[in-house]
């Protein structure tokens, strides 16, 4: 088969396109940081999830260790069941504390994991028993006013 310079240009074009796709997935996206094929799933019941969304990060000491994969409402306990997929490189003790936190003043909400002291580690399908709900501004203000009223009464 005869080769022409046109073939070279087309080959270069295809190579550039593939390189662009790879840059998009590796540099712009986070394909290499978090690989969901090596992960385990844990759940936790939260009284109030605030503005937590599916795909929100799960962080331990500020480092992203997983993502929220599902949020359901339970009609038995009337609270939210949050399913998290964690990287299997990071294991946490059984008595780990999971709380919903906010990054920055107006930032997105994420789940912060604070490790406990148990010897037994969380396995796939386990449930985090200790959870802390998201802060809701109205509740916060309500508690503040209630406190203030109680203090004023005591004076």
């Amino acid at each position: 088969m005869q080769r022409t310079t046109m073939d070279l240009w087309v080959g270069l074009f295809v190579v550039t396109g593939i390189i662009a796709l790879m840059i998009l997935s590796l540099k712009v996206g986070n394909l290499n940081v978090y690989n969901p094929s090596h992960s385990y799933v844990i759940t936790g019941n939260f009284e109030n999830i605030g503005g937590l969304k599916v795909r929100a990060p799960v962080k331990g000491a500020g480092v992203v260790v997983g993502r929220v994969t599902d949020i359901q409402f339970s009609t038995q306990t009337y609270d939210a069941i949050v399913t998290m997929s964690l990287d299997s490189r990071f294991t946490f003790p059984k008595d780990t504390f999971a709380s919903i936190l906010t990054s920055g003043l107006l930032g997105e909400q994420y789940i912060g994991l604070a490790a406990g002291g148990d010897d037994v580690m969380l396995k796939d399908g386990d449930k985090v028993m200790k959870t802390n709900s998201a802060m809701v501004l109205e509740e916060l203000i309500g508690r503040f006013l209630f406190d203030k009223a109680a203090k004023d009464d005591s004076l």
Partner: protein
Amino acid sequence: MPNRIVSSIQNIGHRVIESVWRLGVASRFFILVLLKSGTSLRRFNLVIRELYFTGVLSLIIIVVSGLFVGMVLGLQGYETLQKYGSESAVGTLVALSLVRELGPVVAALLFASRAGSAITAEIGLMKATEQLAAMGMMAVDPIARVVAPRFWAGVISMPFLAAIFSVMGVFGGYLVTVVFIGVDEGSFWSQMQSAVDFRFDILNGFIKSCFFGVAVTAIAVFEGYDAPPTAEGVSGATTRTVVTSSLVILGLDFILTAFMFRGVS
């Protein structure tokens, strides 16, 4: 007076029926191109030749406009975000808007006016100068020999062009915000990487550009093949290609976005 009203209503009806008729012919033509593309995929040299004309020669306009779109996005995003003290989120803004929407859509619009119009004019002129009829006389199927290679070249090159557009846009945004304005480089990339998801953003953008590639080239080859064999007819067909494919891209983009990103943050 009532005669004029009746004739104008008749005119509207005629136009509606005519456009439905054309849509039917276009669908049948599309199926025919798909059925006859076996030969052109076996003789891949034909497709490579068209890839050169539709893909390689579109690179310049895609690269330059991607760079400038990214630079403008970075500049405008920085202006607004710095009011809230979160100028490091400008990387997220640039990358998400490029990968999800602007990359596929603007690349497809440019592709329609750069390559789609050329395809229509070429096929239309081949028809006007009776080259297609001559091929038919020699028992060479013009759809398999002329139309299908152009169609597949457009379908193949569109996703690559959209990806190149997005990468150049991100680079342009990086250039303006990090190099010229002085946003912190680490937070630019890390915020971008934590916000852009492979499955939801990059893969969906890629799928979008594949859809646009099929739509633009299908419209371009049909308009060319269906053009009245006159100078006026070819010019009208070229205009229709650009107008129709731009509208189809924008409409299709809305539908695809509604399917893909519904329920995602």
